[in-house]
């Protein structure tokens, strides 16, 4: 009788433990637990737009199902996703998206302040994770105002530590920029992270190996649409326009600001910067480049509310000529990225042409006249942009010009690479093509050199930090253990990229600003996630569903 009783008890216990197989505190009744974790939706990329993001969202849904959270992966068109993320309602739980690694984003302001500061956690601003942390905000503001680079780095490093611990979002991976050029024809190429081979420097310093072929053909698989700097909206337009138009400062291959059309600058006060213009420069039409042109260009950019560079010109309060060679910028508040992002971006346009065109954004600018190292020769939409070297330029350029050739597909570029009709490519090769060039069957690609540059941009899982369960930092940290970073990198990206991790926004490719000492949550370990959740007071109810801590 007694034995029988014990046996029954044991059986009942076994049955009970089977039901609550997810562990947790089986001794607490469901109604005494915290609220159930709500059913969630992750807006992922469409598989044809970004297969890696799409797969990773599906994976996350499966992992979360195993710990009793329902997450529906809903593939969404990119423009719809942006509507949701930047819309008034801010109605979303999680999403996958990425920030591309443009050169101006080497400056930490974008990835620290713009996407994490609580001021930007409002509708339409860039902190779409709605992350809000008072301690972090102080640092994000301070780095923006600290004009001393070393001191600023110290602050940025501290900010990264907070992000790594708080995990406002989970970075999945960064792509590697694998590109190629014809090493039998050109040498001295510059490879820059976030930019690849067709950066601002390669055309300036690359050297032809023979006198018969001095005009490289640069292949693109994306069309150029606009040659008007005030209307150009794509990176691809800009990659050419910045060679035709000049800028006061250029970022060196080591990503340090280098005086260019300026000979130097002086920080008079935290909010006042004097820039001295280089003497003797001319536009391609022979007219001199004056302080007047510089002031007029900046003023015009500042007056355009929807310009491509609006975020960089907004901090400028006023710009004026001090004398024949100096331009004075007055900033609304100290703005550290002013030299590295504003002065390195805004192109100088000839006032004598632009002041007569009416609305500058509507001008076709069919034949751009700038003061940059390359002169515009002709542009045929969908075919090619032809430039030639500007011989009166102050910096000696080795090539006699370049041709930006537009292809409709990467396959087309590959066949022309094989036929030696292309010398440099300006986009990232897809893994299949990298492998083909690497395997070099029959020596077809022997003339090519593959280059790899790590990308400073990243793709991530965004979490709405305003909503349960993502408003709980423990949950976000636990979530980092449910993401298989190696699967993303080694399988889906075939190894061409770098690992992500919780809260990683400035990765190792951005050597100067990346804080290597911060421990990043970047291991896939579902058991660990479970442990962390249990420790943080999450429980599993009788249906195996995860519940928030009380």
């Amino acid at each position, binding site marked *: 009788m007694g034995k029988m009783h014990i046996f029954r008890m044991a059986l009942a216990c076994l049955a009970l433990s089977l039901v609550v197989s997810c562990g947790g505190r089986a001794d607490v009744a469901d109604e005494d637990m915290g609220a159930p974790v709500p059913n969630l939706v992750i807006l992922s990329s469409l598989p044809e737009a970004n297969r890696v993001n799409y797969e990773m969202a599906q994976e996350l849904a499966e992992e979360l199902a195993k710990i009793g959270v329902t997450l529906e992966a809903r593939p969404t*068109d990119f423009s719809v996703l942006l509507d949701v993320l930047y819309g008034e309602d801010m109605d979303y739980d999680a999403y996958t998206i990425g920030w591309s690694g443009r050169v101006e984003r080497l400056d930490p302001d974008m990835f620290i302040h713009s996407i994490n500061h609580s001021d930007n956690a409002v509708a339409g601003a860039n902190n779409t994770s709605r992350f809000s942390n008072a301690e972090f905000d102080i640092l994000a503001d301070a780095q923006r105002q600290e004009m001393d680079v070393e001191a600023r780095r110290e602050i940025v490093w501290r900010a990264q530590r907070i992000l790594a611990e708080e995990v406002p979002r989970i970075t999945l991976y960064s792509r590697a920029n694998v590109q190629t050029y014809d090493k039998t024809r050109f040498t001295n190429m510059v490879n820059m992270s976030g930019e690849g081979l067709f950066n601002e420097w390669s055309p300036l310093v690359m050297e032809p190996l023979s006198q018969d072929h001095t005009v490289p053909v640069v292949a693109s698989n994306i069309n150029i649409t606009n040659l008007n700097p005030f209307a150009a909206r794509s990176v691809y337009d800009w990659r050419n326009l910045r060679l035709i138009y000049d800028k006061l400062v250029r970022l060196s291959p080591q990503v340090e600001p280098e005086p260019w059309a300026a000979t130097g600058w002086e920080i008079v006060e935290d909010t006042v910067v004097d820039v001295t213009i280089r003497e003797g420069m001319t536009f391609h039409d022979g007219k001199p480049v004056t302080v007047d042109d510089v002031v007029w260009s900046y003023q015009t950019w500042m007056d355009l509310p929807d310009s491509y560079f609006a975020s960089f010109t907004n901090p400028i309060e006023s710009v004026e000529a001090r004398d024949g060679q100096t331009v004075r910028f007055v900033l609304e508040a100290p703005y550290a990225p002013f030299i590295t992002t504003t002065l390195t971006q805004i192109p100088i346009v000839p006032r004598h042409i632009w002041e007569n065109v009416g609305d500058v954004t509507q001008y076709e600018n069919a034949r751009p006249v700038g003061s940059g190292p390359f002169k515009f020769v002709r542009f045929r939409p969908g075919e090619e942009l032809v430039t030639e070297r500007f011989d009166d330029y102050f910096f000696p350029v080795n090539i006699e010009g370049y041709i930006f050739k537009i292809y409709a597909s990467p396959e*087309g570029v590959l066949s022309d690479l094989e*036929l030696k009709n292309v010398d440099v490519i300006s986009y990232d090769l897809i893994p299949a093509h990298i492998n083909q060039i690497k395997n070099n069957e029959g020596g077809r690609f022997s003339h090519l050199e593959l280059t790899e540059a790590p990308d400073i941009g990243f793709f991530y899982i965004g979490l709405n930090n305003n909503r349960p369960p993502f408003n709980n930092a423990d949950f976000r940290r636990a979530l980092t253990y449910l993401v298989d970073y190696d699967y993303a990198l080694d399988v889906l990206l075939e190894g061409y990229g770098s690992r992500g991790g919780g809260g990683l926004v400035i990765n190792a490719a951005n050597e100067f600003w990346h804080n290597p000492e911060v421990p990043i949550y970047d291991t896939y370990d579902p058991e660990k996630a479970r442990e962390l959740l249990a420790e943080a007071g999450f429980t599993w109810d009788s249906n195996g569903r995860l519940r928030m801590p009380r």
Partner: protein
Amino acid sequence: MLFYIAKRLMVMVIMLFLIATMIFLMFRTMPGDPTASMVDPSIPREARQALLERYGLHESLWTQYQIFVQDLVRLDFGNSFFYNRPVLRVIGDRLPATLILMLSAMLVAYLAGVLGGAWMAWHRGSPLESVGVTFSLIFRSAPTFWVGLMAIMVFSVALGWFPAQGMRSTGYTGDTFFEIFVNRDFLRHLILPSIVAGFYFLATPLLIMRNSMLEVMSEDYIEMARAKGLTERRVLYHHAARNALLPVVTAGALFIGAAIGGQVLIEVVFSWPGLGREIVQAVTRSDYPLAQGVFIIISAIMMFMNLVADVVYAFLDPRITYR
């Protein structure tokens, strides 16, 4: 006859107006904000708003529609969001390349199709006939981009007979129509894509011609021609084929409208700077004015070619009259 044409043209205008309205609404109901593909998400919110206002997209749907219709009546399709240029000029720049490729493809398809189809009907049941049918159907059903890539691999990369990509050699100078289109360099670039496109379109004229020939061959006048002791070839091409051509002509007129869209993949594979690529880009980038303009113009061409087919029919076949 003239009255008939006038009547048809009237109907065409009404139809076009309805189609334009549908296209207008279609793009507006498409999910996503058109500025999403135009501006980087990192630019300030006010900038996005300003952009919407510049393109008039902040107005109510009804106001937008009124403006659209007023412009349409004046044949003004507006400015492309991306190119900052009038839509008609963007289309005008690209249309010749597409038309030339299309007409050469048509030439290949119809020449081979009409002659081959007639020959196949004449030699009905021969092994060569089934080879012909199979051949044309293979090219019809194989993905054109695949056929194109294979053709590039074999004839451009391995054999080096034709250039692989584009419409002319890199750095080629010349701006007038003649400089661009009437020279050896252009012709060399044209051959491969037009053959691939031609083979893709081949099945339609070939099979129509063959079927139509089979019908004609049972007619009494063929018997008569034979009885007169004419040579096989003369009966085939002079008497039978000419009468069998009618349905092929109709199909040909309709073909022109359909080919602009059907040619998109060929243009992509060969990096041909035509209108097809532009259509795809305009739609994916939500460039409303350009996409609307292209679709309205294609519909107009389709309808017009329909009318042409009917009129030509009447000329070719005296039994047909329109009132």
